[in-house]
């Protein structure tokens, strides 16, 4: 019998990092304030104490440097786990991630690779953070061949996906839904385990419509599905978990069954990853679709502060969109 501990998503991240560092001394954690202090969210608590300042350390304040340094570490053979303090601050590292990490193996003909690289960053709204502590930049990275993009939605996933990401032979961007860092609590195995990347999780079976999302949106989707169920609407719920490469097969099968698809994410609508999914699914499920694929997302504005609630795609918006889709 597997021993488990009740913990929240943040603790599961910490536990995943701890597990990875204990299992392999090549695993190195780096980032702003992650040493002594354990990170502004405390995702790296106690790691410096346990594994020493050479394996868990503060960096100077430079995201492009952190990414570049971590790529170099990974190219040398280390397993580099870099933290970007907020996903909003990943953009100074964009060139290193998109032009370098993503293309490292390809451009060298596999002479070199930086597959040992994982970049973690808390992302998303829900903490009164306004423009610069709330963004969901996943779509930018999903348009970048060579990267993998992973987003857990609960504590169990967080540890299992993080361990898989760290050990994956390709560079992985790992976004953590900070809104539910503490709110999402569950049983997490004490042992070392991995959840396969590239595989979506069907959270609930249903027959009338498929609801698809990732990260903190899974909670909103779950609530909306409950409201819908009360009206006799049976929702199938899919947590995508890995956005790049994404599990098309699972989504296609589901939509072929339900005939309807709703996708939800916090990022702005235009250019958000729901567009890619909708475009692919309309192609693969054209004859089975009974209504247009619906997208419930953030507005096409920067992330506001005082109107955060209004901006976010919440359960009531999803619920309304489900009803509209069924009434189509």
């Amino acid at each position, binding site marked *: 019998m597997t021993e488990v501990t009740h913990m929240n998503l943040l603790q599961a991240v910490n536990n995943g990092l701890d597990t990875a560092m204990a299992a392999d001394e090549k695993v190195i954690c780096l980032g*702003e*304030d992650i*040493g*002594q*202090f*354990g990170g*502004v969210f405390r995702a790296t608590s106690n790691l410096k104490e346990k594994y020493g300042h050479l394996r868990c*350390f*503060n960096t*100077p*304040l*430079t*995201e*492009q*440097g952190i990414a570049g340094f971590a790529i170099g570490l990974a190219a040398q053979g280390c397993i580099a786990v870099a933290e970007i303090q907020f996903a*909003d*601050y990943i*953009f*100074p590292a964009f060139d290193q991630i998109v032009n370098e990490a993503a293309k490292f193996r390809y451009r060298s003909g596999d002479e070199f690779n930086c597959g040992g690289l994982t970049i973690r960053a808390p992302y998303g709204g829900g903490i*009164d*953070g*306004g*423009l*610069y*502590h709330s963004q969901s930049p996943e779509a930018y990275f999903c348009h970048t061949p060579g990267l993998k993009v992973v987003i857990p939605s609960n504590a169990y996933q967080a540890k299992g996906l993080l361990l898989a990401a760290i050990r994956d032979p390709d560079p992985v961007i790992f976004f953590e839904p900070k809104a539910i860092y503490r709110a999402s609590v569950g049983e997490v195995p004490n042992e070392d385990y991995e959840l396969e990347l590239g595989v979506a999780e069907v959270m609930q079976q249903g027959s009338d419509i498929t609801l698809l999302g990732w990260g903190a949106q899974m909670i909103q989707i779950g609530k909306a599905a409950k409201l819908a169920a009360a009206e006799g609407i049976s929702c199938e719920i899919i947590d995508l978990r890995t956005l790049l490469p994404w599990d098309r097969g699972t989504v296609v099968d589901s939509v072929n069954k339900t005939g309807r698809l709703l996708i939800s994410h916090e990022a702005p*609508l*235009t250019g958000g990853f729901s567009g890619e999914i909708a475009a692919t699914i309309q192609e693969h499920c054209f004859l089975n679709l009974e209504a247009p694929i619906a997208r419930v997302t953030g*507005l*096409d*504005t*920067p992330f*506001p*502060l*005082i*109107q955060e*609630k*209004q*901006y976010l795609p*919440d359960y*009531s*918006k999803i619920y*309304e969109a489900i009803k509209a889709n069924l009434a189509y």
Partner: protein
Amino acid sequence: MTVKSSQICAPIFIDGSALKISTLRLLNADGSLVDDLQAPDITEDMAGKIYSDMVYTRILDQRMLRAQRQGRLSFYLTCTGEEASVVGTAAAFSADDMIMGQYREQAALRCRGFTTEQFMHQLLSNASDLGKGRQMPIHYGSRELNFMTISSPLATQIPQAAGYAYGQKLAGNNACTLCYFGDGAASEGDFHAGLNMAAVLKSPVVFVARNNGYAISTPSAEQYAGDGIAPRGIGYGIKTIRVDGNDILAVYAAASEARAIAVKEQCPVLIETMSYRLGAHSTSDDPSGYRSHEEEEEWRQRDPINRMKNWLIKKNWWDESRDEQLQNKFHDEILHELKLAEKCPKPPLADIIDDVYKVPPEHLIEQLKSLQTHVAKYPDNYRTHGDGCQ
């Protein structure tokens, strides 16, 4: 053939610590002048205004910190300990000069005339906030006062300041830009880009590196291995000075001279102010996890406000009873305005799509309409506190 003086003929490396930069200091802790210097060039009026702005900032910070703890603000961040670095620099500039800050320079905004009411509206994200409630508390900005709206991503204002000042040079009106940043932000690539571009393109900008020893939890020993920020200025070919940031006279003297150089020579100047962040990084932080009380205490002894007060008193420009009066006045005014502001309405929902573009495009108008319909259907889900105010 002989070796020219700029040549060497043995592989002797210059040590990383070769360039030690001295610190300008004029004022002792007791308010006496270092080495019995001449009184610096500062009028009683100017000294009074500077002191008053420093005291105001200290009280604003204390009061707002408490308000945040009481749950009346979502977030706050103090300037405590660095008031001289900020007021001493800002006071040396003209109202036409643009200020581009990092986030810990509310003292400069006060110095420009931002009112308590304006502070409160921003901190509470009210409809009257010039920033329309869009950014977190402390992200102030005012076109009227030439104070660029604060942006959270660190160091981005540095190359922007170089460009802004270049525009001022072309406009030819003898204005310049004052650009603040921290010892942490100075590690960003944008710092390098901004200082180098300003030097090459001769932008009249005065850079103020507020070296307060920490970037959140990261001490400067883990931020850089050189002698702080100042030597980098020399590397870019920029005139540079380091000052004791807790010494208001030194800061003001350096800043006055820096502005004069920037405007006269149309070039950048770098000032590094050595000080200490006496409080937590922000209300989200607890410094006890990464530094000692003793260290904090040591710096508390060098409080820039006390040091200036001692000097003012020595000059007979000030006394303790006026000091108490001033503090009480600020205290009452801030509390009063906070209460008023708490009763003010929040920005209307329609604001949410404004200013993304100068004119909202069709898709945003549609998104707003459907949002409005939805909010009307679920009013309870979207209530914002605070309604009705004069």
